[in-house]
């Protein structure tokens, strides 16, 4: 394959079993192996020399990875499912919305769920959504299949002889919103992202923020505040609660450790602020806001610090 230089070999397994055998063989022989999904991260990295691989295992022909399905309580999305496949998926409107704003149409046509997990870019749109969704990652290795919570997967990384086969999350139990900003009108990597998922059945709201830590972070305190503040019988909440929710997110974002190192786009303070605004907006979109008590402004900035 051209991108990896003359010495690389490309394998194109047709089943997960074959893929794992190839990975195991490569691992045993000590060859550097790379998994190729949509190639949106790997191909540029190979071209620039940032990564090198003697063996590339291309997964597109593994049809079982390209399946998405629904069980009674959960959704399972194969690692080979593309963002375009997810866009418009009625069973998971929130995920569909997150997938729809990834990169450009070309990226969405080729980039996969497995790649989002494998590359684990901190600004990755799907990662923020899956963090809020309490997703589990399914892998297969010569030791058999394994299933682990997303945070553990992200902390431990993928074993060199293992393959992500799918990601699993609960079926939506209420509104789900994914928002992000990033410096232009479209086709941008997120500077700050926010996912809010409401579970009307379990009386639960979850919120993850991307762009303040090395990986997306759950906003535990804001989630607990929401749980107590929302009227779960009607799904309503006071509009001042949306502001407070945003303020709590700003405070939590500022405390994230380790913080994402300063980058060329957006100061740390701006990213905290934006996290609060996006969280306040997402919160308001997921819940019915009731009129504020007398004396409160109808709608305020979600920035912290105001009385």
């Amino acid at each position: 394959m051209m991108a990896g230089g003359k010495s690389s070999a490309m394998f194109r397994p047709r089943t997960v079993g074959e893929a794992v055998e190839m990975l195991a063989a490569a691992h045993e022989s000590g060859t550097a192996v790379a998994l190729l999904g949509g190639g949106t991260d790997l191909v540029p990295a190979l071209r620039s020399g940032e990564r090198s691989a003697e063996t590339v295992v291309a997964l597109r022909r593994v049809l079982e990875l390209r399946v998405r399905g629904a069980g009674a309580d959960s959704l399972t999305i194969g690692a080979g499912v593309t963002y375009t496949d997810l866009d418009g998926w009625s069973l998971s409107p929130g995920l569909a919305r997150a997938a729809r704003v990834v990169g450009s149409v070309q990226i969405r046509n080729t980039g996969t769920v497995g790649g989002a997990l494998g590359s684990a870019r901190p600004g990755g749109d799907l990662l923020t959504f899956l963090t809020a969704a309490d997703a589990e990652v399914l892998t297969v290795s010569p030791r058999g299949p394994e299933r682990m919570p997303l945070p553990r997967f992200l902390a431990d990384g993928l074993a060199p002889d293992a393959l992500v086969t799918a990601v699993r999350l609960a079926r939506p139990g209420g509104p789900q919103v994914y928002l992000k900003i990033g410096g232009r009108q479209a086709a941008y990597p997120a500077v700050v992202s926010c996912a809010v998922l409401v579970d009307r059945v379990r009386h639960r709201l979850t919120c993850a923020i991307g762009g303040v830590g090395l990986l997306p972070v759950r906003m535990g305190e804001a989630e607990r505040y929401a749980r107590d503040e929302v009227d779960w019988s009607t799904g309503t909440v006071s509009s001042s609660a949306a502001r407070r929710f945003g303020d709590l997110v700003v405070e939590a974002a500022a405390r994230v450790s380790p913080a994402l190192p300063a980058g060329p786009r957006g100061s740390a303070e701006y990213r905290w602020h934006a996290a609060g605004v996006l969280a306040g907006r997402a919160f308001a979109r997921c819940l019915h806001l009731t009129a504020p008590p007398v004396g409160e402004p109808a709608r305020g900035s979600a920035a912290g610090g105001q009385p």
Partner: protein
Amino acid sequence: MGGEVVSGGIGRSVRRPDGPDKVSGAFPYAGDLRVPGMLQARTLRSPHPRARIGRIDTAAARRLPGVAAVVTAADVPGVATYGLIVADQPVFAATEVRYAGEPVAAVAAVDAATARRALAAIEVDYEPLRPSTDPERVLAADAEPLHPAGNLFREIDIRHGEPGVDGPVVVEDHYVVGMQDQAFLAPEAALVSPAADGGVDLRVATQWLHSDREQLAACLGIPENLVRLTLAGVGGAFGGREDVTVQIHGALLARAAGAPVRIAYDRVESFLGHPHRHPARMWFRHTATADGELVSVQARLVMDGGAYASSSPAVLANAVTHAAGPYRVPHARLHGVVVRTNNPPCGAMRGFGVPQVTIGHEAQMDRLADALGLDPVELRARNAVRPGDVLPTGQVLGAPLPARELIQLVAARPLPPPPAADVTGLARPGGLPAAAEPGRVRRGVGYALAYKNLLFSEGMDDSSAARVRLDLTDDGTPRVRVHSACAEVGQGFVTIAGQIARTELGVEQVDLAPADTAVGSAGSTSASRQTWMSGGAVRGACVAVADRLLARVARAAGLPAEVVEAPRRTLRIAAGEIVGVEAGLRVRLADALAEGPIEADYTFHHRRTTALGADGQGDPHVAFAGAAHRAVVDVDIDLGLVRVVSMALAQDCGTVLNPLSLRGQVEGGTAQGLGLALMEELVTVDGVVTNPNFHDYLLPTIADVPDLDFVAVTEPQPDAPYGVKGVGEAPTCTAAPAIVAAIRAAVGRDLRRVPVRPQDLVDLPTRADVHTAGDASTA
């Protein structure tokens, strides 16, 4: 001449011949060129912004199988340095590196992966030194010189009128412009082949073949006639290909290896490899009468040239001479320096020093309008320069320059409808994913007026040569062949050359020969100059060919000697014929050419200008083009996100040779100015670029750039062929300040920095705020 019946002449929207291939992906850019046996080159660059080099050991790299050549400073046979204006930049750093990304060595190998391994095998002992990255400190008396030539590239001090005369209304402030990159889409590339005669042949994407040749020959230590360049497909330039990048390294490698070498940058290397737009720190003080007549303008500019000179001295001259803008200013003191630092080198970029000062003088005009309670359009119209006015340099402004008309025209364009609550998410600031709330979006309208000099300035005779040959094809059809070294970088010479030849010679078939160094220099494709200069050269050569042909016909027809001497008075070319009504003569072009082809060379010169003398006085600029933009923006006031809703442009274009091509230039110039206003900035930390990729260096996309409402003012420019003006740069100068003004109007904040960042438009929590709030909430 009799071009009226030939299609595809001047004034027509002739389509680019390379258009379909570029759109479909078939166009061969320089980086797409391949030849059998070709080697792949890579360049080793310094990771340090400043370091002493102890030792460079290439032995291990040379021993690697597949490595054909490794070159360093020790392998440069000729002059060790190069540069557009002064040769102060080493081909490879030898003893000291002065910016992060400076080339130290290059290798050629059988493939890119081997070349990369070879780079990793080169050992360089760097002793890092403390970089000087603050342009305001490098001129201090105790500042260390960063180069034997010192830290000052140039200083200009223009004194105009009387010192100390002020009006009663004063506005004064500091402004900062960040480092924009040309960010052309096809990275630098050349294919270099060693020749049997000891010379070297290059196919390269560049803006100026003959300047490349001169610098190549000097560094290779061989005569210029042994260095032959042919233009390869160029994917954008915007000034970023005016400096040498891949050329000398590729030639050294090809000669060392004795084999053709492809040297092509990837995106990161492109961002590090060419000079950028100068960042600027500017102070302005404007004073006016209570009626809103400008009395005085003071400006102090500090431009950061980075580690090497590139075109810094000329950029500064543009910045300082344009610092007061296209306004009548009785008294001015305009001072500027461009300095050396350990930041990346800066040089030519579309607008060439003018976009920076336009940010300053236009913000000042708006603030002056506020202070006076005047409409910003009215203040500009009242003070706009008119032909015959004396500019701060003492230069008398030539006609046409309809500055007043431009700002009034653009202000009269219909405004877009107000923001509707039901607009789709994509039409809100931040697009679909930001979910701006309509109730938290504010609209603003802003204006900018500027002028930009055309062609090279300060006494430069940047002439352009062209050769035109008129002959018959094998089937006996007349054909024109135009040969010019004009680099087509997207500006449209590929259509203009043919349009001119058709108009002058009445021949439909025009072939444009590849641009190369087998013909005289056409000068640089920059400074809005090629349609005027190389267009003028093509026209001059066509006229000479026509004169010879007419003389031939007159002679053959036995017409009197005075007709043969000046045949144009009697004969003309029309519809493929030579017609002399009085002489009763009618000869088919094909018959007149049966005797043999006719060829002529012509070199076009613009009017002479003068260097800036004492007090910055002189006649430095050939001519100017004016532009005025109106921007309408929507701002999400919670997130500080900006969407440009509409842009209107009125521009002083001279005679329009190709309306479609003009449209492309002004739309592109507007988009590039929009990028400068809102997003395009190379961010350096201690001299190191932190975002050399399209992930973090954002360019406007089609979702960011609204349709352009464009009005061309077409008063012809005297002395220019057909009355043309260059059109590519002026709109780049006005788009950014108009957008900044619109944002200022929307949010009610003075904006002193470009690009405007979201964080500049909102109140941010401080670390202390947040921690106090956090403590309170947990208490």
